[in-house]
């Protein structure tokens, strides 16, 4: 049985909105305690991460290195609070540990470290590294004839990096049908370099593409369902940076900023 032993949560359970609001609260509190964090980047991808870890990715928090697991790479590593929030919620480590974020004694860094944090597959932070690493993992799984898949999230700003497009060429050429790349298209990179029609760009590199609302769980889930085949898949997820906290939404001031103690309650009260 393919999924034997893996956690099987679904996206349709009741109380889902409250659960995500709780994760947002944990993230804001962790950043506030640390005085550090890219909260808005984490909120941009939180719905996608939630769906990935509730019914899409084969994973087992008790066996984070199980060879049969699906692999997830957060290429935009500065959104580490997002993956930490989800991994804690899934039980990879205790939720209380979130409050050690970015501390000298903690293991949850401003960018994730695969040698420290269970469930983190790749140490990312330098943009443009995670996607080709994920492609290498997919290539390795293909050589082994494994049925595990690899999913990575890149940021739209990260798509400025040439290595992203090098990886896009490689993945199509080597027919990595087990590889999915989600672009967190929150347009924060537009101020520097407009990317335009990302679906068309990925298609021209030989990828299947789907464009979705990156905060609509049904659309996210439908796009991520396993399909097989030999063509890598790009999901262009239209997202809102800072989604779920009005003050932060599309507000560049919150790109890299932690709430002060006196700001905390007002921000928490805004969470949706």
């Amino acid at each position, binding site marked *: 049985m393919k999924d034997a032993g893996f956690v099987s949560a679904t996206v349709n359970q009741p109380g889902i909105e409250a659960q995500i609001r709780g994760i947002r609260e944990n993230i804001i509190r962790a950043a506030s305690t640390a005085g550090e964090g890219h909260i808005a980047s984490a909120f941009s991808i939180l719905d996608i991460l939630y769906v990935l870890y509730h019914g899409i990715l084969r994973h087992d928090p008790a066996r984070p290195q199980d060879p049969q697991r699906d692999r997830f790479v957060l290429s935009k590593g500065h959104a580490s609070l997002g993956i930490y929030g989800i991994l804690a919620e899934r039980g990879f480590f205790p939720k209380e540990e979130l409050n050690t974020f970015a501390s000298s004694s903690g293991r949850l860094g401003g960018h994730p470290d*695969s040698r420290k944090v269970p469930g983190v597959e790749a*140490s990312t932070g330098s943009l443009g*590294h995670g996607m080709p690493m994920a492609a*290498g993992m997919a290539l*390795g799984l293909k*050589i082994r004839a494994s049925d595990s898949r690899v999913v990575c999230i890149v940021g739209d700003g990260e798509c400025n990096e040439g290595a992203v497009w090098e*990886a896009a*060429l*490689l993945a199509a*050429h080597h027919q990595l049908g087990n590889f999915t790349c989600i672009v967190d298209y929150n347009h924060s990179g537009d101020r520097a370099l407009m990317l335009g029609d990302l679906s068309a760009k990925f298609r021209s590199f030989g990828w299947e593409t789907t464009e979705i609302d990156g905060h609509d769980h049904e659309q996210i889930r439908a796009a991520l369902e396993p399909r097989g085949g030999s063509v890598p898949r790009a999901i262009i997820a239209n997202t809102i940076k800072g989604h779920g906290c009005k003050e932060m939404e599309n507000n560049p001031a919150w790109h890299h900023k932690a709430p002060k103690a006196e700001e905390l309650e007002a921000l928490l009260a805004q969470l949706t």
Partner: protein
Amino acid sequence: MRKQFVTTTERLLDEDERVVVLLGDIGVFAFRNAFKKHPQRVLNIGILEQATVSVAAGLAKEGFIPLFHSIAPFVVERAFEQIKVDFGYQQLGGNFVSVGGSYDYAALGCSHHCPGDVSLMQAVPGVEIIVPGHPSELDALMSQTYASGHPTYYRLSERSNRSALPVTFGKAEVIRSGKGPTVVTVGPFLDRVLEALDGTDATILYYTTVTPFDASTLQQHAGDGRILCVEPFYEGTLTASITQALRGKRIALSSMGVPRQFLTSYGHADYHDRACGLLPADIRARYDELLHV
């Protein structure tokens, strides 16, 4: 040496199914048999070095032993951050095999020169750096280290010494022991050092592993602290390793290697040897200087 690299790699591919070879669109014809025999594990990955190193890291994460081969500046300088973060920081094992170190490709100009490769690679904690001086030494050292679990850099040269030594990873060879200054040399520079110091009473230490540096052999053969280092890459590359090995000891260190400037002439490597002052007569002159210290 390149021919031996192919032969050794073919053997490792046969013996160890974890080995995956990624060629940066060079050496493709030389690997034609390996492509046929191991189509899934020998890939002409293309001319995209940064992604290739990251892809290699992904393969390493899946339990493979990647081997990436291209010309030195494209392996080391183009993809340096990928080597640093994806392999060094993540402590993954992989092999990086370059050709064209320093000015082997003299006629192609400065874009293809790479005397700084060893200095750069030394800056990545955990990296092993191997500079063989003979094809048989390459075979021995690759066999000893390809699965070490570290990022390992092999610097192949177009030139080699006349005969091979029974080299061991991490160990320097004592070529001879005398009462004069101690000469430290590396890989393909051994023959010219031997020629230069014929008839002298020099101690000669031969390094094919540059990192980790065999401090112990130097400590035991440093004599009165007069040291001449003759290195086939940027001059001073081994200075920190030598001074650290001999810390607390009074030393007189003289280094000679490729000068830290762009070599804008073309021609052959022999021409640059002369222009850079790296001929046996130049080495002898430096050695004689130390006799008066």
